[in-house]
């Protein structure tokens, strides 16, 4: 499990970009207080999904408006065509942790990144 942030760091209804993983991930906290973790970079081009608009458990990419289902990573319509990789999130004692996926990330062309953990606490 990888420690990402404190739950309080994430405003309800918003996302937070966490860069202690590589590639960076986005932690979303819905208005119902569900927490989801997905790769932060949109699968289409270089945009941070943490900056996107959260509606229920969907996030809309802030650059070209494709929407991703945070539960499955699935994308609703172009321009993005590939789903975003999801990570299993857990909140323990007010801290957000994730089991980082070992699947290959769906990063857009020209964006460097790997599945390796860059730094931070791993337990």
């Amino acid at each position: 499990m990888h420690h990402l942030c404190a739950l309080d760091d994430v405003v309800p209804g918003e996302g937070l970009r966490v860069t202690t993983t590589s590639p960076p991930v986005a932690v979303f906290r819905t208005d119902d207080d569900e927490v989801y973790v997905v790769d932060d970079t949109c699968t289409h081009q270089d945009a941070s999904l943490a900056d996107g608009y959260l509606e229920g458990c969907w996030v809309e990419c802030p650059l070209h408006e494709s929407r991703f289902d945070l539960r499955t990573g699935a994308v609703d319509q172009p321009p993005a065509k590939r789903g975003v990789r999801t990570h299993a999130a857990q909140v323990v004692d007010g801290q957000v942790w994730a089991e980082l996926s070992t699947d290959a990330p769906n990063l857009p062309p020209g964006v460097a990144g790997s599945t390796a953990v860059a730094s931070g606490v791993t337990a």
Partner: protein
Amino acid sequence: MSPRHVVVVGASLAGHATARALRDAGYDGALTIVGDEQHRPYDRPPLSKGFLDGTLAAEDLALEDADDTDLAATWLVGHRAVGLDVGLGAPGVAATHCVTLDDGTVLVADAVVLATGARARRLPAHLGGDLAGVHTLRTLDDALALRAELVPGSRLVLVGAGFVGAEIAATASKLGVDVSLVEASTTPLAGPLGAEVGAAVAGLHAAHGTPLYCGVPVAGLTGATQVDGVLLDDGTHLPADVVVAGIGSVPATDWLVGTGVPLTDAGAVAADADGATAVPGVWAVGDCSAWWDGDRAAHHRTEHWNDALVRPRTVAASLLGLAPVVTTAAPYFWSDQYGVRLQFAGRRTGDEVLTVEAGSLEGGDALAVYWRGHVPVAVLGMGQPKLFNRWKRSLGVASVAA
């Protein structure tokens, strides 16, 4: 009645999106896509950004990807449409149109979608526009030619400080090219953004050490066969190895003159709010078109990537006689300059009141809102994606915050 053969002219963003929207909407008849470039559909915005600086390769620009089918379409790439003969139909008889290609092929179709986009406006020959080293940037081939000349230490002058010119300037300076910009108007981007915001965005050049000469027209380019400089009306001479004219684009509609398809004064195909032209069975979408804009009570041409992607869904529904797909979303575009993402949405006509809701114009991180009374009608963000997307959603809705 569903058509039997749809011909889409223009094999780029709007043409490809139209083909996909037709198939998504259930159209299973014949579909032909004609494009005069040698390439399958590719994405243009990276041409002044990641493709120009070498981060992206040509294959990264493809709009189709490996698991995309070819949409069961006949792709005629490398072919230019040169004529359109509109059959007007008759009561009970569907119109049949003929599209003639440069090799003499005639395509007979009962629906035609014009998606020919635009071409870069060139500097006229008498000003030196034909000299070697003078470029425009619209196509992949243009970008390859320009990229080859942007070597570190070379001197680049951009004529025109609009969005594309500004992006090229930012990219080239990152490549170690010695860049300057000249702009005939006193404030760059005053047309789309207004003078105050335009000046703030143009301030990014100064903040990154790129000289910008405003308010002085270009008298001409200098050089015998190869360009060696840009001469301004006030006598200033800027030495240059490479010149790029970023002075706008013109709708690629010359081939439609005299066909009966109505064009606006600026040469765009005039269409209604669903993309239908006054000729039954002919639609137009993307950069070549000017759709009816109720807010402005005029035909309005947007040259935005998003509109070229989204509006084809409206065209497909109209063409197939399905329930209208209304695109209520405000026109939207973005631009990346010096690592700052600019985003603009809305319909700005010029007499709005401006407020800065976050950051500052001087600081280059503003979230600026344009108001008509208590209604926000447009929003611009400089590196403010979160706030921008929130405000974008509230456009057109009266707010007490004004």
